[in-house]
């Protein structure tokens, strides 16, 4: 008898939890603000602090927006999400939306993040590698979905290396540092902004690297993207969003410590690590273009170079370069970076 009671109790608990779980819905936000789903490119990094700065100071709300910041899954996923309407605005590595526009994704670039391309290759100094041409025949560890691997054929051909002369080992993003530290790979591709983390494992005097931009790789990197539908139906929202975001960039570039403090209120980050990360990010904003034209400026020459890179080395493009971006939503006046 006792057993039957126990069994029935167990079944009841399980059943009630199931029924209750099925009825769960997510909470909702105040109705007066316009809801915007903003998708990041990856998990939280130092350069994501800006969005939380804008959130904390209420700059999104000032523009009448209620922004939901969503942690991302990679540039490819950002394009998929924008095109299928799962997000309104997203961050993506510039070549990705361009390539996929050809495949039918109706996405456009509306603002730039990194002005100098942060792609980088890391290796042990004692491996003898000093320049990109030395990569031929080496083993390179990089996550398959990483922008580095996708753009490697383009960069390789630019510097005169046969792209197939290297051996790739696909790794989990978390294993980048370990792959190099354990010498399981000769080279690791990682953004230069990840250098502080590399240095946790490999002393700075033994860590060799070169930044692709220093060898002529002049494409655009992380950018804000949105869909053609949003551009047609809600251009005002895009303007307001970018205004708040670039205002936050302007603030963050001048107050990085505070930005990281704010970020740590929203996410479980190690402040010292992320501050080092953000300071490196700032180096990629310190260009003449951002000084003179403003943060986020889409340079027609560079976007054309990005377009040509894709067209030559990745995917023949059937649409004109003007179709892949729209700079009419950037704030005016632009926030200039006086570094």
């Amino acid at each position, binding site marked *: 008898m006792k057993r039957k009671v126990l069994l029935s109790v167990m079944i009841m608990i399980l059943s009630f939890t199931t029924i209750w779980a099925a009825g769960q819905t997510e909470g909702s936000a105040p109705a007066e603000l316009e809801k915007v789903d903003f998708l990041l490119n990856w998990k939280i990094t130092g350069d994501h602090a800006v969005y939380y700065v804008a959130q904390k100071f209420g700059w999104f709300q000032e523009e009448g927006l209620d922004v939901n910041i969503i942690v991302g899954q*990679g540039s*490819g996923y950002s*394009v*998929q999400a924008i*095109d*299928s309407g799962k997000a309104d605005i997203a961050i993506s590595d510039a070549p*990705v939306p361009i*390539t*996929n526009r050809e*495949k*039918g*994704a109706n996405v456009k670039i509306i603002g730039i993040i990194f002005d100098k391309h942060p792609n980088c290759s890391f290796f042990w100094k004692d491996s003898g590698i000093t320049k990109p041409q030395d990569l031929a025949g080496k083993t390179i*560890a990089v*996550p*398959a*979905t*990483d922008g580095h*691997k*996708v753009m490697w054929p383009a960069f390789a051909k630019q510097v005169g290396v046969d792209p197939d002369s290297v*051996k*790739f*080992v*696909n*790794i*989990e993003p*978390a*294993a980048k*540092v*370990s*792959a190099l*530290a*354990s010498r*399981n790979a000769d080279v690791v591709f990682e953004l230069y902004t990840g250098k502080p983390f590399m240095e946790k494992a490999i002393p700075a005097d033994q860590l060799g690297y070169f930044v692709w931009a220093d060898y002529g790789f002049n494409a655009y990197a992380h950018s804000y993207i949105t869909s053609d539908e949003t551009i047609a139906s809600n251009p005002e929202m895009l303007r307001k969003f970018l205004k708040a975001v670039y205002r936050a960039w302007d603030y963050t570039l001048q107050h990085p410590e505070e930005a990281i403090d704010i970020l740590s209120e929203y996410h479980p980050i190690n402040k010292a690590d992320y501050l080092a990360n953000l300071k490196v990010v700032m180096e990629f904003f310190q260009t003449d273009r951002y000084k003179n034209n403003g943060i986020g400026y889409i340079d027609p020459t560079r976007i054309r170079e990005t377009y040509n890179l894709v067209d030559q080395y990745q995917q023949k493009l059937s649409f004109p370069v003007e179709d892949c971006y729209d700079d009419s939503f950037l704030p005016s006046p632009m926030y200039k970076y006086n570094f």
Partner: protein
Amino acid sequence: MGKSVTAFIKKIAPKLLYFFLFLAVWQAVVMVFKIKVFILPSPIAVFQHLLDPSIAVQYDWWHHIGATLMEVLVSFAATAVVGIALAILISWSRLFSQLLSPIIILFNSLPKIALAPLFLIWFGYGFLPNILVAFMIAFFPVIINTSAGLMAVEDDLLDLVRYLNASKLQVFMKIRIPNSLPYIFAGLKISATMCVVGSIVGEFIAAEKGLGYLLRDAQAFIDTPTMFACLLLLSAIGLALFSFIGFLEKICMPWEHVQVEK
């Protein structure tokens, strides 16, 4: 001979029918709703990337299928042997049960992929590390089920044979092990599919070939037909291994499953 072939076909036919029905519905949905290829590819696109020579050749399918298949089979063999052996050890000796069980249970609650950087440093990458990861992911069901099977002997039967002065070893060999066969086979079936998952997790951690490697490469280019083709192949491998174990089960325990379903 002819009879068993027709019986086999009769068994497979409804399952194949449902599979083709599923493919047809999938194709229809993609076409009717005009779903874009990088959101959901159509089955035709998937099979093209797999079978159409002009498209498929760039993926070097056999190279990758071979790598993953080897990992799955070897890890499954290791899982079966070591898993059953450990379970016998745990059931035989209360001491070993107390020593080993907590470690096994605590270990199995860990998501192995979280230890990726550690594995890379300790084991490097290649065939053997992938098998190790697959084993670590798949061994638990075999141990749990085998132990349960060895333990679940009726009291009356045990009392009887002890009354007849059966030794512990005799009880083990002649009663516990035969009794646990259904449990063991159920455990092996579960582990079979987990070996597939485990091999891929190993490949995701670090690999230079295999279906997991190809899957990630395809993901990078949002090449969804190839991604789905990889997933299809992985499921096929899992299904094949699962069916093979079911087949072995029928041979080892022909007396089971003779039910008359109304």
